[in-house]
C-alpha cells in the first residue's frame, strides 16, 4: 500500500517533469485562471468597500420643531428603531447640534460672536436614520409622513434629496448584481479553460493510459499520477500567482486609495494573504483533480 502510494507519487512527478512542455502549458493556463480568480475576489472586496462607503453617506434626517419635547422625540426614535428596514437611528439633541455647529465654525469669530449673543439655541433636534438597504429610504420616508408626527416635525430631508438617493440606490443595486454576474461568468470561463487544457494534456497521453491497462495496472494506479500532477499544477500556480499579485497590489494600492480613501488594498492583501492563498490552492487543486478524473474516465474503458 505504502509502496503503491510512493510509486503513484513518483510517477506523477516523473511525468510532470518528463512532459515539461505540456506541464508548462497547463501550468500557465492554470496560473492565468488563478490570476483572474484572485483579481475577481479582490475586485469584489474593492467594489463592496466602495459601495459601502457611498451607502454609508446616505441617510435621512428628521428635523424637529424647537418646541418639540425631548421625550416625544425619543418615543419617535424608539418606534423607528423597531422598523425592520432601519439599521440605526442617531438622536442629535439641540445642545449636541449646537456643539457640532460650534466645532465646525470654531475658526470663524463672527459666527461665534453671533451665537454667543443669542439668548436661545436656534438649532433643532434631529434624528439621523440609516436604512439597511439604500432602496428602503422611500419606505421610511413614507412612514414618517404617514405617522401623526406632523405636529413636531419641521422637515424631513428625504424630500429634498429623493432623486439623488434613489439614483444612488439603483446604482448600488445594479453594481452589486453586475459584480456577482461578472464573478460567476469569469469563474466559469476560467474553469472551462483549465478543464479543456487538462483534457488535451490527457488526450495526448491516451495511448499510455491504454498501455497501462493492458499491462495490468489498476485504474487507481493509472489515475493516481494524474491526480498528483493536478495537485502539483494547483500548488505551483497558487504560489506563482501570489508571487505575481503581491507586487502588483503593492504598486496599485496608493492609486486606489485616491478613489476609495477608506481602503488600504495592500494592507488588506497582506492580512488576508493566507486566506487568498488557500482559496487559490483549493480552486487550483480542486479543478486540477476534477478535470483529470473526468478526462481520464473514457480511456480507462479498455
Amino acid at each position: 500500500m505504502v509502496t503503491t502510494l510512493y510509486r503513484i507519487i513518483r510517477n506523477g512527478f516523473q511525468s510532470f517533469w518528463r512532459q515539461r512542455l505540456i506541464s508548462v502549458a497547463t501550468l500557465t493556463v492554470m496560473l492565468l485562471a488563478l490570476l483572474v480568480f484572485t483579481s475577481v475576489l479582490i475586485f469584489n472586496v474593492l467594489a463592496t468597500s466602495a459601495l459601502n462607503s457611498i451607502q454609508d453617506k446616505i441617510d435621512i434626517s428628521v428635523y424637529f420643531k424647537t418646541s418639540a419635547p425631548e421625550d416625544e422625540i425619543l418615543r419617535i426614535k424608539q418606534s423607528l428603531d423597531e422598523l425592520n428596514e432601519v439599521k440605526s437611528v442617531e438622536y442629535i439633541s439641540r445642545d449636541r447640534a449646537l456643539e457640532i455647529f460650534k466645532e465646525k465654525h470654531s475658526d470663524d469669530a463672527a459666527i461665534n460672536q453671533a451665537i454667543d449673543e443669542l439668548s436661545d439655541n436656534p438649532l433643532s433636534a434631529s434624528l439621523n436614520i440609516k436604512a439597511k438597504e439604500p432602496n428602503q429610504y422611500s419606505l421610511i420616508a413614507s412612514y414618517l409622513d404617514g405617522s401623526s408626527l406632523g405636529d413636531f416635525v419641521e422637515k424631513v430631508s428625504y424630500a429634498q434629496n429623493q432623486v439623488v438617493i434613489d439614483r444612488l440606490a439603483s446604482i448600488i443595486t445594479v453594481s452589486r448584481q453586475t459584480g456577482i454576474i461578472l464573478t460567476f461568468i469569469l469563474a466559469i470561463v476560467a474553469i472551462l479553460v483549465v478543464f479543456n487544457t487538462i483534457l488535451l494534456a490527457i488526450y495526448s497521453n491516451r495511448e499510455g493510459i491504454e498501455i497501462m491497462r493492458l499491462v495490468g495496472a489498476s485504474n487507481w494506479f493509472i489515475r493516481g499520477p494524474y491526480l498528483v500532477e493536478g495537485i502539483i499544477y494547483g500548488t505551483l500556480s497558487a504560489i506563482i500567482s501570489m508571487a505575481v499579485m503581491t507586487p502588483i497590489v503593492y504598486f496599485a494600492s496608493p492609486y486606489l486609495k485616491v478613489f476609495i480613501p477608506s481602503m488600504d488594498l495592500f494592507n488588506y492583501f497582506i492580512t488576508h494573504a493566507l486566506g487568498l492563498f488557500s482559496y487559490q490552492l483549493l480552486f487550483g487543486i480542486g479543478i486540477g483533480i476534477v478535470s483529470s478524473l473526468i478526462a481520464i474516465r473514457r480511456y480507462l474503458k479498455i
Partner: protein
Amino acid sequence: MINFQNVSKRYNGYEALIDVTFKIVPQEFVSIVGRSGAGKSTVVKLLIGEEKPTSGRVTFGHYDVSKLKSGQLPQLRRHIGTVFQDFKLLPTKNVYENIAFALEVAGKPEKEIDDLVREVLDLVDLGTKSKNFINELSGGEKQRVAIARAMVNRPDVIVADEPTGNLDPFNTSSIINILTKINELGTTLILATHNKDIVDRLGRRVILLEGGKVATDEEKGRYTA
C-alpha cells in the same frame, strides 16, 4: 488452460468471429494464422478482456474472461504477457521503467523488481540500453523491450499479436527465436501472425482462421492458405 467455447463476436453487424471453439493446454506453442481481417486480433482481444464476446464463453485458468468486470481485468492481465505489432511501450519511460512497470502494478518490492528486470534485460540482450528512452531504439529493440515486459512477471501465457509485422527478416527471426526460447522455459505461447515463413519453420500447432471461423486446427501444422 485457455478455452474458447462457441465464441462469436459481432461489431456493428460485421461478424468478426463465428462460433469459434478451441482449447490451449499449458506449455503449448500455438500459432493463430489467417489473412488480415480473419479474426486473429479479435481472438487476442477477447482473451485479454479488451472485448467481450457477443456469444459464447472464454475462460483462462479459473477466470471466466467473458464475465470479468472492468475492475477485475488487471488481475487477469498480470497472468498474461502481451506483445503487439506496434510495441505499445510507454514513451515517457525508459527501457528499464517500461519493464519494471509490469511489476510495479502488481505491487512487487523494489529489490525484487530490480533483480527481475536486469535478468530479462540480459535475456533479450538489452542490458546496455536500460536507460534509453523508447524513441531512441530501433524497431527490433523496441519489440525486445516489449517481450521483456511481457515475460518479466513470469506470466502463464504470452500472447503475441503480429509481433514481427513491423520488422525486417533479420529482426523477425531474432524475435521468433526469443519467443521459442521463452516457450521452452515453460511459458504457453500464442502467436497471431500472417507470416507464412515463420509458421512453417516453427512446425508447431497451427489454428487457421478464415472469415471468422476455424478452418483447420492441426498439430505440427503449416500455413497452407
